[in-house]
């Protein structure tokens, strides 16, 4: 015997319903189980929050249960954790100031700092691109700081007023696959990348990448807008491939998918460390060439941050020879403090011809450069 389904239009008032059957409908006990499970997990969350509040932080550190020292520094960092953590630890052990690290994408964090302007949360901001920092300076969210140590950094690698300072420099280079290109086939300058000889063989990061934008800004500054536009159009005509980021570029070149990659110099070292057959070209070093384009990872003090004193101590700390050596070792970068030794195979500031581009230009020209990239269709 089965009961019919009640049709929607003609309710069947005669169908007997047993009130007692209601609680035992499917789902009753399961619902309780489900609610209980949720509550249990929510409690676990609350416990987790409490744990986070007492100061466990960043990867690679032990459980941070030290008693509150009251002195604190909030760092927003766009660098990979493993590349900044040792530096932060050195700072903590030297000064006793507790570092609270929030790391993520540099540009995303810069947007967060702008969004937090009415109530700043960060003390310092570490970015991988001078353009990002200069853009924040122009927005008025960075605090100038021109200490003696900041002044020791070459003027083109920092803001004139000390709102930000480069702590490690990177060079825009061309890396190549040594099994696919013979030495006599190699490009010599960045301009060569648009040469039809290399049609479809060049990979680069997509145009939202800060290093790419910075390089185009530098080209515009060096040779003018018309040149930069023509170069970009030639690159497109040459079927340059744009990948998600430099990691994808270095791997594609390492695997031989493309012969050439337009990257920051340490990506070449990373790919070589993975065992790939790659080589590097330090471009534009000839007597008539402008020199290689530089960029810096740098630090700026956030205006109105909660711990201004610790922030200043931190900036000075990053420019000590010891910290500078850490940068050189951790990521094969070039110390911005003259005289600090580089890692093996990496040229230092003095031995590489550097294109005459004050890095402030990267921030000042950022919008016009993106306009150009959009116009050309990158």
């Amino acid at each position, binding site marked *: 015997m*089965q009961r*019919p*389904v*009640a*049709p*929607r*239009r003609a*309710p069947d008032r005669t169908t007997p319903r047993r*009130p007692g*059957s*209601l*609680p035992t*409908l*499917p*789902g009753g006990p399961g*619902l309780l189980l*489900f609610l209980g*499970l*949720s*509550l249990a*997990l929510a409690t676990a*969350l*609350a416990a*987790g*929050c409490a744990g*986070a*509040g007492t*100061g*466990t*932080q*960043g*990867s*690679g550190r032990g459980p*941070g249960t030290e008693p509150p020292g009251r002195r604190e520094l909030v760092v927003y960092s766009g660098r*990979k954790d493993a590349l900044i953590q040792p530096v932060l630890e050195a700072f903590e052990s030297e000064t006793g100031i507790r570092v609270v*690290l*929030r790391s993520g994408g540099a540009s*995303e*964090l810069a*947007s*967060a700092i*702008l*969004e*937090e302007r*009415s*109530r700043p*949360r960060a003390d310092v901001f570490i970015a991988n691109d001078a353009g*990002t920092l200069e*853009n924040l300076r122009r*927005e008025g969210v960075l605090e100038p700081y021109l200490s003696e140590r900041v002044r020791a950094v070459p003027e083109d690698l920092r803001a004139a007023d000390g709102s930000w300072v480069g702590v490690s420099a990177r060079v825009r280079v061309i890396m190549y696959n040594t099994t696919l290109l013979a030495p006599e086939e190699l490009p010599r300058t960045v301009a060569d990348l648009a040469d039809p000889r290399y049609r479809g063989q060049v990979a680069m990061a*997509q*145009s939202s990448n800060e290093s790419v934008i910075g390089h185009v800004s530098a080209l515009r500054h060096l040779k003018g807008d018309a040149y930069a536009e023509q170069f970009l159009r030639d690159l497109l005509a040459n079927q340059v491939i744009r*990948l*998600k980021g430099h*990691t994808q570029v270095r791997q594609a070149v390492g695997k031989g*998918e493309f012969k050439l990659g337009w990257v920051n110099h340490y990506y070449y070292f*990373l790919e070589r460390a993975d065992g790939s057959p790659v080589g590097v070209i330090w471009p534009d070093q000839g007597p008539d060439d402008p020199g290689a384009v530089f960029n810096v990872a740098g630090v700026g003090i956030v205006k109105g941050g909660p711990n201004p004193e610790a922030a200043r101590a931190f900036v000075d700390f990053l420019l000590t020879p010891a910290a500078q050596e850490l940068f050189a070792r951790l990521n094969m970068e070039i110390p911005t403090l003259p005289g600090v030794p580089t890692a093996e195979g990496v040229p230092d500031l003095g031995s590489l011809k550097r294109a005459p581009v004050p890095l402030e230009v990267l921030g000042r020209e*950022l919008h016009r450069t*993106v306009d150009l990239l*959009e116009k050309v269709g990158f």
Partner: protein
Amino acid sequence: MAGPRRLGLTAPPAVSVPSGRWIAPAGWAGLWGGRPPHPGLVLAALATAAVGGVPLLYVFYRAATGGDEVWRRLWATRIPSLLVSTLSLTAGVTLVAALLAVPLAWLVARTDLAGRNVWAWVAALPLVIPPYLGAFAYISIFGPRGVLEGIVRRWVGAVPETLGPAALYSFGGVTLVLGLFTYPYVYLLVLGALRRFNVSLEEAARAAGHGPWAVFRRVPLPLLRPAVSAGTLLVALYVLADFGAVSMLRYPTFTQAIYLQLIGRYDRSAAAALGAVLVAISVFLLWAEDRARGRARYYQTVGTFRPQPQVRLGRWRRMALAYVLGVTMASVGVPLGMVGYWTFRGLAAGVPLEPLWRAAAHSLGAAAGAAFLTVALAFPVAYLRARHGGPICRGLAQLAQSGYALPGVVAALALIFLFNRYLPWLYGTPLVVLTAYVIRFLPQALQAEDAALAQVSPRLEEAARSLGLGPLAASARVTLPLVAPGLAAGWSLVFVSGLKELSATLLLRPAGFETLPVRVWMQASEGFFSQAGPAALVLVLCSAPLLGVLLGRQHRGEGHG
């Protein structure tokens, strides 16, 4: 009463006043499809819409501060072409997901497929695999110098164009890969619907003299339509918002343009203007889905539930098994194999595990808390829409879902804006992360609850009320238990989505609040995959058993008579 009287599927009249209790002014009643709801319910739904609408308000605020110069500039760039490529990808992935999911759900729910209970669980697993991991697995196999190329090179020689990178990075390749990792949204909802499915309806149709195809067309098809359309909607909105997987597969979409504005230019106004375009698309999709479902309402009384007879596959049994095996190998086997390999190498290299457990605790807590909140918040809206209808309900539901198609970064900036300015004492707490999950995944709970409610007849509640229960008690005692599988499905969807969420978490997490995807991202974004392995594996392991529990309890629900 013996035997079915007539097929229990009819569309309700636009206005039906079932009992004398609903007496309200005609204008007010008209706004609610003739049946004004309990005011408490309306207030709760309003609160939900307010939470879900935060990103929308932010986007319009920021876009408005940019002025119309922003629009002119943007429209002159490649945005129109990006729009076309994005919409075609969305359509393609949605179609692939539906085509993969519906047969899978039917095979495990209704046939004598060998090992169907295990397959039911395995087929849902891609849900717990972040699509960017899946995309990466496919790149390492089909990509240049990938596994496939190595094998083919050894045995055949050159790799044919149709198999290698050219195929992977084509429209078809990207569509297929994304379809493989998004089909569970459709699968879970359809499976839930199939298991709640009342078999006596089919018998009635057969008794009325319909052949098997006509039966299928008249009974299961319309009954499954809400689940299918709800699931495909989730897939479509996901594709619109995704950045990681799509850009890894080298397919240009609209989110890339948003990133260029936000990341390249720090132009939050332009990014917001583009975000508004995405919101407009998603509102259109929500509206279209609403329309597709139409005014038709299909209810089943679960009181007459009987075990469903299995369809005997006969000589098709092997073919069915091959199909299920093939799909799950592609969507589960491949990425898990890769994650397992990474983990093996990572553990061999001595990756520290202690931070991993802390990250797992954070991930589980945040995802579970958010899932709980989301299911609770979504219920009033879903209930209103299912039981009352009318323009207000539709508006509230659309507002609550408007933020889903926005990339996580935009949603995160909206929350920074809101919390830092107006709720500063909460800023920098895990609650902000939780709120982001709620906002981003509200539509998942809503769609699941919608699909469940769509199968429960309001007659049951009316009967309970005629027996003397108040309106809220009637909902709580009758409808709530009946839609519990739908709530559970919604909870599990939000839970695993929260577990996978990366872009908003990165920006909103308190210092030191690491989740599993954050750990994976930190290693994998720089190419250190073996170090990312253990975190990725724990991420999958955390959600996989839960999926089993939820599927299992759906399964038990089918046996009631």
